[in-house]
């Protein structure tokens, strides 16, 4: 690969994608799902990926997670090619993905129970602390279906934080929530992120969500998904409902909207 072409110093990149492409069907004439993705994500950076549905956003996330090995190019985490899932990468799934037979606390502890077969009292203490940070203490012994959708997804985030990953991958985590809950949980996420700084890759199809949350936004084209633009979000932090009203917020969302609705614009 053309290593010298990467402009960012590789050292500082936590996640690095070089000419990444993928097709599920190995035949030569089979269509690509994503192609030519170049992206470096730095320490404690919040990068969102937006694009029309079916553009391969989730495929991209699965490749960083090590759940899928790209057929073209290379994904590396901490300068190591990703060949399998790593302990320092946490995933927040779409629709919370909680186990309905476990209480909230046990769901949060599940990664340890599942990976090692047990957890210690200090792990339990950590789970309780995380639950408290997310304002879920009083729901710790409830079953997931007793919680609202927004609370369930907060549990999903807390679970991903249990193993204290350096990198957090979020796959359209709020897409199953209604608009009001969605905005609120966005602020909750920023709050959690501030308390536990992580390098975040956030997949979404909501333009305003991407602008509100992230430092940079990768805009993807229709399938086969490729990079249309990489936009710097220069809105000041901490962000709040004020941010949404600022003219710059509107400008940025307009720019992205332009890409999404005119998909033939060259990158």
């Amino acid at each position, binding site marked *: 690969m053309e290593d010298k072409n990467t402009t960012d110093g590789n050292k500082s990149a936590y996640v690095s994608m070089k000419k990444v492409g993928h097709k599920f069907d190995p035949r030569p004439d089979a269509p690509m799902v994503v192609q030519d993705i170049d992206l470096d994500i730095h320490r404690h950076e919040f990068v969102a990926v937006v694009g029309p549905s079916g553009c391969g956003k989730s495929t991209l996330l*699965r490749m960083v*997670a*090590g*759940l899928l090995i790209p057929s073209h190019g290379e994904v590396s985490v901490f300068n190591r090619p990703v060949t*399998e*899932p790593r*302990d320092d*990468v946490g*995933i927040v*799934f*779409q*629709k919370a*993905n909680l*186990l*309905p*037979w476990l209480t909230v606390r046990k769901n949060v502890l*599940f*990664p340890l*129970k*599942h*990976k090692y*077969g047990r957890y210690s009292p200090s792990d339990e203490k950590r789970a309780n602390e995380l639950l408290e940070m997310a304002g879920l203490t009083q729901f710790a012994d409830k*079953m997931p*279906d007793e919680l609202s959708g927004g609370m369930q997804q907060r549990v999903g985030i807390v679970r991903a934080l249990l193993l204290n990953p350096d990198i957090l991958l979020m796959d359209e985590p709020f897409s199953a929530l209604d608009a009001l809950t969605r905005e609120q949980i966005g602020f909750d996420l920023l709050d959690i992120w501030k308390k536990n700084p992580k390098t975040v890759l956030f997949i979404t199809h909501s333009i305003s969500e991407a602008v509100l949350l992230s430092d940079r936004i990768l805009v993807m084209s229709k399938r086969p998904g490729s990079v249309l633009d990489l936009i710097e979000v220069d809105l000041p932090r901490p962000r709040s409902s004020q941010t949404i009203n600022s003219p710059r917020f509107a400008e940025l969302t307009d720019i992205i909207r332009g890409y999404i609705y005119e998909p033939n614009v060259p990158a």
Partner: protein
Amino acid sequence: MNQTYQPKTWLGQQANRFAPGLFFIGLVLLWELICRFGNVPNYILPSPAAIFMAFFDVEFSRWLTHLWATLRVALMGFGLSILIAIPLSIGMMRSELMNRVLYPALIVIQSTPVVAVAPLIIVLLGTDDPSRVLITCLITFFPLVVSTTTGMLETPPEMIELSQSLRAPRYRETWQIRIPYAIPHIFSGLRVSITLAIIGAVVAEFVAAEEGLGYFIQFSTSFFKIPQAFAGLIFLSVISLLLFKSIQWIQAWFFPWSLPKKK
């Protein structure tokens, strides 16, 4: 339009509330009337009153012996069926080869009428409990295999990805994700199987037995003691219902999360 009927008077409301019970009582009364005024002899169709009296023609301890014999065979067959079906389903889910080899065999076993095989099993294993338990097991285990396998295979891919992202050993994926996910499916299989277990036990008793409700019904019929045969039948229905209910109770007690949400 399927509008719920709302009676206005108190009496009407009570009648509406107990409608299923009243229907049943009505049916029994009608049966009694037909037998009494139609001069139907007891050895053709006994009246409900005659059936009721027949309960006392047989000693209580005899009833218990028959009841216990049938229940024992049904529960042993059902238990054996669980012990075979669940590991088998796990094996078939985990190994494609095992699935390919065993599935056709299971279909063959399931499509062979157990009633027809029962005499052959008696020849093979003798006239004691083992053959009766095997007959019961054969009739009960297929729904269990199907429901368990379906449940485990229907586990959402995201839950499996959660397991993969943790690089957990596969047996924990099975024990901590797939099997719990399959619990509601397993219980619907258990509910079907438990009623089949009674059928299995009765079929086995028809072929060869010296006790049990199936044997009792056959024996009574051959001596034209039809009211007694009906009394035995009622016992059979009652245990069948109780077993079915106890599966529901077990599910509600141990796995309350697996019940459909009432909303």
